[in-house]
């Protein structure tokens, strides 16, 4: 049969939403874990920081690398938001219909939609603030510099809200992604779905705990040290100049 000319855009947009979501989801899993190195020690967090600044590859620190990656994530974040915004209700009528549906239909996966919409919407604003800060001030990352930002520059409430939003959004999103494309679906989708859902909830709980503890540690550091904007952590073993 003759092949017709088809509009490939809907398929591409759907793939784009899934792919950008997957990248951001995996990124955030790593990000919060690396961030939690502060729970081990200041030295550990410092080493993770200079690792991402390329110290172990070039022998010197280049915070510009952080800027570059933050910028790349920012672009992916914007693309994801642009394609995912299609799932938002786009008028009051749709909002009301969905609200009635969710209130009357007691169904967990449908209720999760509200979480996705709310957390996504919140991140449009506070996610942007965080990403821009990282792009603009990549040199201000470290046990003391980050603690200064969290407490003295009043970022703690914003970071906590961002943590709740990003963790739930990421893991609900990854759960949906698996079901949407039939990833590791197995013979019985009920079993695989139950497992994915358990993993989703376990990871949400785990990451919120790890993230909150890290945040608490930065707050502790800020209150137990007399921090100024230019106070920097001095490693006992590594000595270097910053570029």
């Amino acid at each position, binding site marked *: *049969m*003759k*092949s*017709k000319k*088809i*509009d*490939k855009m*809907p*398929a*591409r*947009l*759907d*793939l784009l939403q899934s792919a950008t979501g997957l990248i951001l989801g995996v990124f955030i899993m790593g990000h919060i874990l690396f961030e939690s190195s502060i729970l081990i020690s200041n030295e550990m967090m410092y080493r993770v920081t200079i690792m991402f600044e390329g110290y172990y590859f070039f022998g010197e620190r280049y915070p510009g690398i952080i800027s570059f990656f933050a910028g790349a994530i920012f672009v992916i974040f914007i693309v994801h938001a642009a394609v995912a915004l*299609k*799932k938002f*209700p786009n008028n009051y009528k*749709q909002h009301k*219909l*969905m609200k*009635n*549906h*969710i*209130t*009357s*239909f*007691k*169904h967990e*996966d*449908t209720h*999760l*939609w509200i979480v996705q919409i709310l957390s996504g919407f919140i991140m449009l604003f506070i996610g942007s603030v965080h990403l821009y800060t990282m792009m603009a001030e990549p040199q201000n990352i470290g046990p003391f510099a980050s603690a200064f930002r969290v407490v003295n520059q009043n970022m703690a409430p914003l970071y906590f809200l961002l943590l709740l939003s990003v963790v739930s959004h990421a893991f609900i999103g990854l759960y*949906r992604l698996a*079901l*949407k*494309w*039939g990833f590791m*679906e197995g013979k019985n*989708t009920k079993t695989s*779905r139950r497992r994915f859902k358990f993993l989703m909830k376990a990871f949400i709980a785990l990451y919120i705990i790890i993230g909150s503890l890290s945040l608490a540690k930065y707050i502790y550091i800020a209150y137990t040290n007399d921090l100024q904007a230019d106070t920097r952590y001095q490693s006992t073993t590594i000595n270097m100049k910053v570029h």
Partner: protein
Amino acid sequence: MSLEKKERLLKISILRFDPNDPEDFPEMETFEVEEADGMTLYIVLNEIREHHDNSLKFDFVCRAGICGSCAMLVNGRPTLACRTLTAKLDEHITLAPLPLFELIGDLSIHTGKWMRNLNEHLETWIHDKENEMNFDKLEERMEPELADEIYEIDRCVECGCCVAGCGTIQMRPSFTGAVGLNKIARYHLDPRDKRSDEEYYELIGDEDGVFGCMTLLGCQDVCPKDLPLQSKIAYLRRMMLKTSMKN
């Protein structure tokens, strides 16, 4: 000596409305029915019509979960009345007609009209230009596994539960819904249907089709026939993406 079990008195609240009566307006009406052993909502509704109000409108044909006529919202959840045991519910039960479908009155809805529209739009029949009208020719053989797979998803009774349980279609009524996507999966699997991948893409390769699905899985969880809707929609999503990547 027999133990006398005290039967519950069920309070059945039904959303009553006759769209054809210009003076009528929707309101909840509550009936009290004494519960009996093995009672289904289908029996409850007949009790109400027989003893309380013979003007109550609701649909049923087979009373055995085969025809799909008696789908309604039971405590907000789409399901078949004839397969719902009252014993599994609280004393207070709320019944409402499925949303989205044309309301005939009370719990009676015109699912048939909606489904006919859908079937005509998606052309849910075998397309084979070469063998059209040739009834003497034997059908092509297929593997028993494939036949089983097709038979499995062909069990859909078009009751409309998946449509009423779908969040996407509430917001965007032009969305095909699981019933339509399931049918497309059925014909896509069938080797006798000669429609090309591109022709299928034309039917469901957009946001009114498979790419509009938000994977809330209400359809999967309310389907009274327990059809594999989740995995069939995922299958179509992969197929449509594959088609879009050709050339």
